[in-house]
C-alpha cells in the first residue's frame, strides 16, 4: 500500500527543515543562518497549504485526516510559529552564543502541533502531544536561569502525570470499544449508549489529560509559573500554538458525539468552563507580574472557548475557530510586546517596567493597549467580534448559565486589563528601568499583528467566510 504523501507535505517540510538545520549546524553555526532557514522552512510549509487544499479531505493512513479543518489550523500554527521565530531572533541575540537548538526544538514543537490538528487516531494524538511536550520542556529551560529550570521541571512533572492519565483513558476506551479511531469511537459510543460507566470514566481521564494542556481549572496550576519562567517568545508559543492545537483536537475528538446526550460529560465540561472563567479572572486581579496576569487571563479565555465548544448547531465550529484566531493574534501581540521590551538579563514582566511606557514608547504602548483591549473584548478589535460570536453560539444553544458567566467574567476581566493600560498612561516611568534599543523586526511583527487585529475587528467577513467553508471530519 502506498501512502499518499502530498496531503502531509507540510508535516514533511517542517520535519525536513529541522533535519536540514541539524546538518547545517554540524558544519557551521551561525544564528542568522539558522534563523533564516527556520523562517524559510515555515514559510515553505505554509506555501504548500493552498496546493493541498484541492485534495482534501484525505485520510492518510488511519492516523491522519487531512481536511479543511486540519489545513486551516496548520496554517494558523505555521504563521504563529513564524511570528514566534521572528520575535525570537532579537530576544536570543546576545543572550546565548548560538541558539541553533532553540530553532530546531521550535520546529519540532510546531510539527507536534500540526500532527495534533490532523490526528484522527489515538496513536497520532498521543504522538503529537508528546512531540510537542518534550520539545517544550527543553525550550522552557532554554536560558538556564533558576526560574526557568523550576518552570521546566514543573511542566515536565505535571505533563507526564497528565499524559499517563490520558494513556490510561485511551487504554480503557480501547479495551471497551476495541478501536482507537475517533470516528469509530464516536459511532460505537453512540450505539453503546451513554450509560456505559467505563467509557465515561475513560473519557473523563482523557479530559484530564487535555485539561492539563489547556490549563483549565482545576488542572491549571502549572500555568502561572511556566508563563513567568519561560522565555517570553516561548510563553507566547505555549499560550497560542500549544493550547490552540490541543483545543482543535478536543473539538475534533468530540465532533462525532453529541455532547448533550452524555449528561455527565456535559456537566463536567460546564463546571470546568465556569470554574476556569471565574478562577482565571479573579486570580488575575491580584497579579503584579504581566506574564502571570496573562497566564491567568488565558485560563479564563480557554473557559470562554468552552462555552462555544459546548454549544451545538452551525455556529459551534466557526465560533471556536474565529475566537481562536483572534486569541492567537492578541496573545502573540501581547507577549510580543513583552518580548520586545525584555532586556538581556530578565524579561520585562514586572508591572513597574510598564509605568509611563506611553511617554517613552508611544508606539509600543499603543499596540499593547489595543491588544489588551482586544483581550477584554472591546469593539474595533478582533476580540470583540470573537466574543460576540462566542456569546451568540451560547445564546443560540440556550446555555444561559454559561453565557451569563461569560458576560460577568468579561466585566471582571476589564478591571485588570484597564489597570495595566492605565499604568502605561498615567504613572511616571520607574527610575532604573532601561528600555532596549529600537528593534526593527519586533516592531514590524507587532505592527503587522496590530493591523490584522484591527482588520479582523472591522471587517471580519473574509475570514468568517473562510472559516464557514471549513468541513470538520471526525476522522
Amino acid at each position, binding site marked *: 500500500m502506498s501512502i499518499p504523501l502530498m496531503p502531509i507535505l507540510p508535516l514533511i517540510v517542517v520535519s525536513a527543515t529541522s533535519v536540514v538545520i541539524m546538518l547545517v549546524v554540524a558544519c557551521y553555526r551561525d544564528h542568522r543562518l539558522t534563523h533564516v532557514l527556520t523562517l524559510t522552512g515555515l514559510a515553505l510549509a505554509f506555501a504548500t497549504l493552498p496546493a493541498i487544499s484541492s485534495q482534501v479531505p484525505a485520510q492518510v493512513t488511519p492516523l491522519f485526516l487531512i481536511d479543511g479543518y486540519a489545513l486551516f489550523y496548520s496554517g494558523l500554527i505555521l504563521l504563529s510559529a513564524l511570528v514566534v521565530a521572528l520575535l525570537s531572533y532579537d530576544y536570543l541575540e546576545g543572550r546565548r552564543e548560538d541558539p541553533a537548538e532553540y530553532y530546531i526544538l521550535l520546529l519540532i514543537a510546531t510539527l507536534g502541533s500540526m500532527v495534533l490538528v490532523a490526528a484522527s487516531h489515538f496513536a497520532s494524538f498521543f504522538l503529537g502531544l508528546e512531540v510537542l511536550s518534550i520539545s517544550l520542556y527543553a525550550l522552557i529551560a532554554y536560558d538556564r536561569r533558576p526560574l526557568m529550570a523550576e518552570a521546566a521541571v514543573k511542566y515536565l512533572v505535571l505533563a507526564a502525570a497528565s499524559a499517563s492519565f490520558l494513556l490510561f483513558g485511551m487504554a480503557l476506551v480501547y479495551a471497551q470499544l476495541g478501536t482507537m479511531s475517533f470516528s469509530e469511537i464516536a459511532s460505537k459510543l453512540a450505539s453503546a449508549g451513554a450509560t456505559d460507566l467505563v467509557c465515561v470514566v475513560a473519557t473523563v481521564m482523557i479530559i484530564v489529560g487535555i485539561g492539563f494542556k489547556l490549563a483549565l481549572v482545576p488542572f491549571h496550576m502549572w500555568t502561572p509559573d511556566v508563563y513567568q519562567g519561560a522565555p517570553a517568545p516561548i510563553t507566547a508559543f505555549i499560550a497560542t500554538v500549544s493550547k490552540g492545537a490541543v483545543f482543535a483536537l478536543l473539538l475534533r475528538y468530540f465532533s462525532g458525539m453529541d455532547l448533550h446526550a452524555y449528561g455527565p460529560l456535559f456537566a463536567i465540561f460546564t463546571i470546568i468552563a465556569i470554574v476556569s472563567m471565574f478562577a482565571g479572572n479573579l486570580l488575575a486581579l491580584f497579579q503584579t507580574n504581566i506574564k502571570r496576569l496573562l497566564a491567568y487571563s488565558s485560563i479564563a479565555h480557554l473557559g470562554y472557548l468552552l462555552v462555544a465548544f459546548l454549544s451545538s448547531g452551525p455556529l459551534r465550529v466557526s465560533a471556536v475557530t474565529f475566537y481562536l484566531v483572534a486569541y492567537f493574534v492578541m496573545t502573540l501581540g501581547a507577549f510580543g510586546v513583552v518580548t520586545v521590551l525584555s532586556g538581556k538579563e530578565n524579561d520585562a514582566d514586572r508591572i513597574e517596567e510598564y509605568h509611563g511606557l506611553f511617554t517613552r514608547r508611544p508606539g509600543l504602548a499603543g499596540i499593547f493597549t489595543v491588544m489588551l*483591549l482586544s483581550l477584554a473584548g*472591546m*469593539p*474595533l478589535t478582533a476580540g*470583540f*467580534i470573537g466574543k*460576540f460570536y462566542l*456569546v*451568540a453560539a451560547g*445564546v*443560540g444553544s440556550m446555555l444561559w448559565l454559561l*453565557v*451569563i458567566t461569560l*458576560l*460577568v467574567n*468579561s*466585566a471582571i476581566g*476589564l*478591571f485588570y486589563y*484597564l489597570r495595566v493600560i*492605565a499604568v502605561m*498612561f*498615567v504613572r511616571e516611568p520607574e527610575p532604573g528601568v532601561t528600555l532596549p534599543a529600537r528593534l526593527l523586526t519586533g516592531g514590524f511583527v507587532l505592527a503587522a499583528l496590530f493591523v490584522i487585529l484591527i482588520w479582523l475587528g472591522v*471587517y*471580519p*467577513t473574509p475570514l*468568517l*467566510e473562510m472559516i*464557514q467553508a471549513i468541513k470538520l471530519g471526525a476522522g
Partner: protein
Amino acid sequence: MLVWLILIPLVGGVLAWLFDRAGNRWPRWISLFAFGIDLALVLLLWVEHPGEVDLTANRAWFAEIQVPWISSMGITIHLAIDGISLLLVMLSCFLGIMATIASWTEIRERVGLFHFNLTWTVAGIIGVFLSLDLFLFYFFWELMLIPMYFLIALWGHENRSYASVKFFLFTQVGGLAMLLGILGIYFVHGRQTGIYTFDYSELLGTRMSPNTALLLMLSFLAAFLVKLPALPFHAWLPDAHTEAPTGGSVILAGLLLKTGAYGILRFAVPLFPGAALQIAPWAMMVGVIGILYGAVLAFAQTDLKRLVAYTSVSHMGFVLLGIFAWNELALQGVIIQMLCHGISAGALFMLVGSLQERLRTRDTRRMGGLWPVAPRTGGAMLFFALASLGLPGMGNFVGEFLVLLGTYRVSILLTVIAAGGFIVSTVYALWMIQRALYGPNEEGWRIPDLSMREVGAMTAMVLAILWLGLYPRPFIHTAGHGLDQIQKIVRQARADRTIMPPIESARVR
C-alpha cells in the same frame, strides 16, 4: 453623508493625536474644526428637511444607508437619520465644540491624546444615534465607553481611578446585559422566520410570548437605565461627573445620558411594545422617584459639581416619565427636555469647571461673595440655574411642562408628585446661587472673570436655551415625524397583539 458624520470626528481625533507634537494649540483647533464641520453638515441636513418627510413617498428617514458588513450573521452597516436622531446629533456636535472650548485652558498635559479621546467618544455617541442595526448599535455603544473611561481616568480629579472604574463597571455590565437581549431577539426572530438578522426594521414586530418579551426588554433596559440613569442604577453618576475633567463632564451629562433615553425611545419600547406597556407604571414611578430623589440630594451637596450631577438625575427622571407616558405631548416634551438638559447641564459644568480652575476648589462652603469679583460668571450661572429650575421662557420649562401635560392624561397622581420636583429644584438652584455667589467673600477670592472665549461659548448656549424656550416649534416639528413613526409602530403592534394572543404564544420557538 451619514458615514461622514461619524468619520469626521474619528479622523479628527487621529489627526489631533498626530499633531500633538506640533504644539498644544493644534489638537484643540483640529477637534474644534472637526466638530464644526460635523455641525455644519447636520445643519445643512436640517435645512433640507425641516420637518415632514414627504409623506407620499412614505419614507421614514431623512437619509439612510445600508451596506453589508458581516453578511453571514446578517449584520449590515445600517445608518439612518430622522428628526429625533438629527436633533440629538446636532446636540452632540454642539456640545463637542463646547467641550473642546471648556478644555482649552484646563487640559495642559497630553493634549493630543485628550482630544483624541474626546472626539472618539462623541463619534461613538453619534454612531449610537444613527445606527439601525442592533449589532452596529452595540458596537458604538461599547466604542464610546473606552475613550470616556480614559477621559475620566487620565485627566480627572482627585478620586479619578475609583470613579472611572465604577463608571466603566456599571455601564459595561448594563451593556453586556443588552448584548444578551440583542442576541435573544436575534434568535427568536431567526427561528420564527428563518431570517437571521440584526436589522432594526426587520426585527420590529417580532412575535414572542409575553414572558420572553419582558425578559428581553429588561435586558435592554438594564443598559439604558444605567446610562439614563434611573434609580437605583445611578450610583456611578455622581462620582463620574464629579471626577471627570470639565470637557468630560459636559459630554457625560450632555450626551452620554441621552443615549440611554434614545435607546429606550428607539429600541426598547418599539421592539417590545407589549412588555413596555406592562412595565410602564413601574417605569414612570421610578422616573418620579428619580425626579424627587435627585433634587433632594442635589440640595444636600456641598460639592458644586456633585450638586449639578444630582440635578441630572432629577432631570432625566422627567425623561423617563415622559417616555413611558408614551403620548405625543409627553414625547415632544422628552425631546425638548433632552436638548435643554444637554445644554444647561453642560453649561453649568463648564461654569463650575471654570470656577474650579480659578479657585482650586468645588466646595460651596468655601465660596461666597463671588458675584462682585466675577460678575460674568455669576450672571451666566444665575441664568442656567434658573433654566435648570424650570423658569418659563427657558427651554427646560417647555420640556418639563410638556412631559407633565402628557403624564397628566395617564396618571394624575404621578403628575402631581412630579410637579413637586419643581419646588425642590427651585430650592436647590437658588441655594446654589446663594451659597456660591452671594454672601460675604470670606476667603478673599480675587479671580479673573470669564475670558472672551468662555463668554462666546456661554452666549451660544444662552441663545440656544432661549430659542428652545421661546420658540420650540422648529424642534418639535422636526422631531414630530420620527415620533409619529415610532408611535405608529407601537400602536400597530399593540393592535395586532390584542387580536391574536393564543397563536402567538404557541409560535414561540
